[in-house]
């Protein structure tokens, strides 16, 4: 059977040509596949990068908005406004002789309550980028093939 195949190839040079052509085209197809993969991964990485940019901008805007909202709240709760509101509701200043004082043993007294939270210190850090967003396909393959452990960074 094998001899018949060899014989058939020898009698039809066309097959031999196709075989050789195939051998030349194979690396081209391989390279093309690699480039295609590279493009796909690069496009995905670029999209992710742009999204992260957008998220960082949105985060900055949110921080500004939070600071602004806190301050606007403080304007509404300012001493002048609160006195005005109290007067509108019919309250007036009391004198010490009209106050009934009593001991409340478990009452801890007035405590500090921040009407607007203090700005965050950012110590928790910003996003921790997955290294995949920053590595090329070559880096990825090298890591995959040559690293001993599956040590891809986790977000």
């Amino acid at each position: 059977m094998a001899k018949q195949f060899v014989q058939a190839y020898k009698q039809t040079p066309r097959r031999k040509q196709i075989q050789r052509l195939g051998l030349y085209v194979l690396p081209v197809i391989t390279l093309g596949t690699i480039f295609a993969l590279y493009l796909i991964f690069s496009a995905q990485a670029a999209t992710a990068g742009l999204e992260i940019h957008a998220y960082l901008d949105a985060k900055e805007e949110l921080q500004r908005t939070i600071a602004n909202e806190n301050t606007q709240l403080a304007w509404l709760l300012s001493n002048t406004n609160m006195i005005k509101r109290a007067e509108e509701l019919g309250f007036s200043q009391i004198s010490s002789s009209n106050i009934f004082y009593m001991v409340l043993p478990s009452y801890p007294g007035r405590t500090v309550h921040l009407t607007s939270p203090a700005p965050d210190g950012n110590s928790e850090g910003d996003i921790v980028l997955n290294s995949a967003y920053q590595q090329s396909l070559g880096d990825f393959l090298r890591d995959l093939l040559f690293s001993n452990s599956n040590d891809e960074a986790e977000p």
Partner: protein
Amino acid sequence: MKYKINARLNLIGAICSFIVIVIIFQLFRIQNSEQYIELSEKADQTYTYEKRIVYPERGNIYDRWGHLLAGNEKVYEVGVLLQYVKNAKAIADTLSIIPDVNYEKAFETASLEYGNGKNIYGIIADFLPSGVIDALSKIKEEYETLNPEGEDPDLPSLRGMVWYPHLQRSYPENTLAANVLGFYKFRDRKNGEGFYGVEEYYDDILSGPPVTVEIPLDPYMIEETPTLPSGASLVLTIDREIQAMVEEKVDEAVEYYKAESATVIVLNPKNGEILAMVSQPRINLNQYWIFEEELKDTTPFNRAISETYEPGSVFKILTMAAALDSEAIELDEKFSVGQYFEYYGSYIYNWNRKSWGEQDVLGCLQHSLNVCLAKIAVEEMKADTFYSYMQAFGIGRRTNIDLGGEEIWPLSVPGDDGWYPINLATNSFGQGVAVTPIQMATAASAIANGGKMMKPHVVKAIIDDGEYYETSPQVLSVPISEETADLMNTLLTKSLEGGEGSLALVDGYHIAGKTGTAEVPVESGYDSSLSNVSFVGWGPVDDPQFLVYVWIEKPDPEIGYWGSYVAAPVFHDIVEELVVMLNIPPDAVRQSLYAAGSSHDQTD
């Protein structure tokens, strides 16, 4: 034939392989050539990163209960991206409606030629509230509908006009506690810094320094943004309600007595916490740039810490405390108080220029007798003892209160160029010596607090990175013993109840205090037609929880000249409301509550 075909195929294969090898070789060669590296670096610098200055959010400032006194609000910068400007006139026309925007300047900016060196973006207006931006956005949209892409030069278009948000310092209470807070020069976005008060003293803590960061424009080079810590926030010892109440009383007093100004400090003598600090004038911190118009000539931003003056008779409490503590005099000692006391050719008179006969320590304080105090300082204490006590009380030294702009007047002591023997006599009753209100209040707090003089401070806690750090009270010095302090408390309570300052008394509360009236020094000596009146008092005497220092500068003498008639009533009005705000029951009620509380504890 077969060999020919094979040879051709081999030749084509070899040529293709050669071409591929050449391409690959060239790729390697180019990518490692010097020119490529140089160009690549240049491109990286120009197109890969955007340099941006990031200003960390400035920390908030709260009162002692957490009410926001200084925060940040969002405002907008409006500018033009010159590349996209289609109609500079329309932009200038639209923006010139905004106050402070000049049409010519706006038109000039919007008309700049794009590129041409550095012309890419121009700022036309800044610090605009979101309401203005909403209106601009609406107009821009309308114009865009009317004139899409701004193609028709005869129709208006706001193409190229953009706005960017940023934070601006904001003071929701406007003028409240302005003298304590100081202000942040937010209009100078690059070099803004705190001026006066807490904003100056804690500038480094409140604002992290601006940081230049490189933001990668290449999405493949996305990096984590650097951690920029926001400024720490401060919780002050100031009580917003007490501050507002005292400000109201001060303003009323200045108006009523037609005084030049008034200053009041309310502090807790046990720990040095400032509950309120008020002086005049006060500016609206949201318009800090007009402060130079408001504070004319040499008017200090905060008189309580920056203006020195001769305190007059309130100073006598320090002299008397020093005399008793040094055992230069005895409590039951009698002093012959004549019409005047002659010393080194100068004459010291009592306030009414009359003789007061034999007086004991209480009488000298109760009637505020200059002759008595001068005699005690000169004949009993001597200069060395007197001045060492005054230095221990912090006279001539900074209290180091945590506010920007504290000033002092040096205390002249024997041996100094400006010191003469008569100074000892005049200093004993508060003339010829200058103090700031905070120095005087701090010194008096030593008597109220069992001899311990606590460092005055306005910051109660620092909130940094979400952590709350309380500040610790510090003892500045212990100028007198606890026994002397107790004795002085008794004397000053009695002297107030039967003496000149009875208008300061508050029903239901035992208060210790002393009035002061000082002539105003002028170039030729003293102007006896003008006075600086003051009152220092604290209570409840058995458990002092507040000390109030009142200084009214140059009241109209036709309305009031003496501390007992001008400053003492102001003290009374303040304390009457202060005890309610501090939840201090009348003495009798408080003692019965203590008794009930202790019996409750025993039952528990």
